[in-house]
């Protein structure tokens, strides 16, 4: 996004250290009252000389506690309808007035935070895009995220891992992998994975030929998150009573219990299952939008 909207000087200064892993960036989008309905953000930016003063609160911000910089979506004009009054900035997380508070997730340790803004000054040259164009830029950012979230198992155990465990676990003395229901679930997962791989392969081929990839790539995160949860549940079932064990220090990439307990966030972050279905229906199938009573109302007049 910096390459698209940042000026050349800033790109040269900030992008290389980010790529080398020296600087970490976070994304200040969601708020207590703006999650799926991202355009409802309330964090205010008010003009102050050559810059802006930001007040408000962000929520669910991954890695904010270690981040050096951030991109942020804030409201610059509350008299406009909600989508139109937003702008997009980058900012230094060490700016005076920023407080970061860790949030403990259900799985224990966590990377997500609350971020509080108390009269934080941001110069106007850190604005990305026009005043009022913030929502569109935020959506562009999210589209990159939805596409990039990407290994076959979404960070959980692979199907090979599942199959090898199912070969060891037993159902009344017989290998679980020989059970018809276990095989059926595994077969469904393999079919889904193959379909997604095909979509991915064709998208890469399209890009390599200079064509736009098809929109079907957008189903990937939606399918893989739910799949990881299903496979986790089944793998735990196969362990029987032993399945309750949450071994300290085990990795969600190989341990099904950790994968399962860590999963729910994946069905919410970067677009909930429900929002993604809406997007498929409205953007790809051109079905009518949901009923949105607040759509054309100035933001400060919405109940």
């Amino acid at each position: 996004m910096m390459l698209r909207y940042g000026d050349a000087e800033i790109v040269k200064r900030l992008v290389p250290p980010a790529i080398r892993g020296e600087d970490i960036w976070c994304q200040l989008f969601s708020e207590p009252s703006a999650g799926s309905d991202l355009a409802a953000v309330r964090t205010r930016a008010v003009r102050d000389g050559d810059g802006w003063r930001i007040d408000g609160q962000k929520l669910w911000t991954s890695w904010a506690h270690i981040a050096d910089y951030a991109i942020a979506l804030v409201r610059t004009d509350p008299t406009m309808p909600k989508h139109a009054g937003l702008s997009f900035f980058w900012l230094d997380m060490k700016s005076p007035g920023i407080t970061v508070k860790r949030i403990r997730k259900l799985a224990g340790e966590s990377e997500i935070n609350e971020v509080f803004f108390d009269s934080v000054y941001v110069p106007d040259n850190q604005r990305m895009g026009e005043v009022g164009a913030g929502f569109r830029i935020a959506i562009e950012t999210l589209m990159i995220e939805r596409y990039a979230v990407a290994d076959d198992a979404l960070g959980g155990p692979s199907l090979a891992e599942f199959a090898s465990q199912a070969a060891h676990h037993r159902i009344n003395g017989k290998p679980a992998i020989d059970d018809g229901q276990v095989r059926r679930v595994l077969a469904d997962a393999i079919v889904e994975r193959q379909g997604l791989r095909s979509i991915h392969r064709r998208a890469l081929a399209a890009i390599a030929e200079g064509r736009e990839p098809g929109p079907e790539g957008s189903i990937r995160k939606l399918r893989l998150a739910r799949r990881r949860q299903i496979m986790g549940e089944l793998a735990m079932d196969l362990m029987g009573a032993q399945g309750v064990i949450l071994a300290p220090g085990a990795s969600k990439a190989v341990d099904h219990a950790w994968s399962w307990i860590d999963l729910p966030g994946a069905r919410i972050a970067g677009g909930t299952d429900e929002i993604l279905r809406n997007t498929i229906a409205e953007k790809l199938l051109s079905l009518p939008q949901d009923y949105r009573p607040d759509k054309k109302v100035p933001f400060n007049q919405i109940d």
Partner: protein
Amino acid sequence: MYNEIRAILVDQATRLLDAEVSQARLKDLLENPGSFDAALWSNAIELGWPGIAIAEAAGGLGLGVGVLAPLLQELGGRTVSLPLVAGVVTAGALGGGEVASRLAAGCAIATLALGEAGDCGLSPTLALANGQLTGEKAPAAFAAVATHALVSARDGPEPGLYLVDLGGQGVTRRAEPAIDNGRAAATLRFDRTPAIRVAAGRDAVLHHAAVAATLTAFEQVGGAERCLTVSVAYAKERKAFGQPIGAFQAIKHKLADMYQELEIARGCAIDALEALEQGRKDFFALACTARLGASAAYDFAARECIQTHGGVGVTWEAEPQHHYRRARALALETGGGAVLARSSDRWSAGSGRSGMIDLSSGPRVALGAYVSQARQWLEAMNPRFGGAARHGLSQEDDLVLGRAFQKAKSEAGYACITLPRELGGAVPNSKRFCSARRKTDSISPPTTSLSAWACLCL
């Protein structure tokens, strides 16, 4: 060239089918058991369709299954039944000879008789004795009108495929009322009927069934796609409670699910077809995914197409009934889903038989040198940064390791490969920015932990 031929054929098919195939004509076919649209078959013969995917050596046009597939998709979308798949599979099993060239010319019609009553699998009990078959096969599509049957049977313990001339001795066909009378289906009974062996062994039987399944998957994808199209159109037009029903999430989410199932099925079918065209070892496993994916997608789409239409959907006059029938018929004809889900025994990790999906392998793509190089690099980094190295680390220590991995990637040219090199990416000049985008996504490193990381960092 290849794409041009495909486009010409689809265009030709669209014009013929638009002109000839009406809803009324399709409904007439549903009225009586074993119905066949002989007039349309004559049109298809004039256009050379039966020979498209039959080898030149066997008297066909030798254009390949890749050319036939889009045509089948077009036919499937309209629930038009022509015995093209059975012809291709039978001629393929025969390899050549008079019957194959007659099939290619359309003057012979084939049926695939693989199923038997009482068993949903693909292991025949029909037995050969003295070169003759006696017994019955379950309803097979086009058996009511076929001149030849490719029959699965066993000779002693060994299953195989046999060619039967249906004009020969002891053959009785019985077209019975069925869920889809438009498939020209019939039960075949043999009484000391002469049969010629054309393929021997279980793997051969499964291979030819897999070819049929792969081609049929395109008919199923076409059908599922049509269900989605008509459902979406109806959901936009039909109003309830003051708005189009497509604005309600109960409907739009259902249709979004239909879209996902369709695209997954299409992906599996395309990959299986490619493996078939290239004669790859993983063809059978991919055909299983094509079969399961396409049957699931079409069943789901057909069922929910009716549901989306409400009362109109259950009428004789409306279109959804055709798909509801056809989806099930196609799912049953070449062996039910249960069979191929069972075949996932061939998918067990490390079982080592040919034709299996190796569960530990990455995407089935022709890997460019770049990707294999990137894989090698990831493999080499695995001990330092992979799952084992991260095991038990605190978040702080893990972060240190993560930064080090990102630095290593950057130094090796694998960090943000879509960005220009002067910024630390991998694109030598900014013009290639677009074409190089996302290429790393195809890298499937040996451990998921590492790949998850790679994706997080890229």
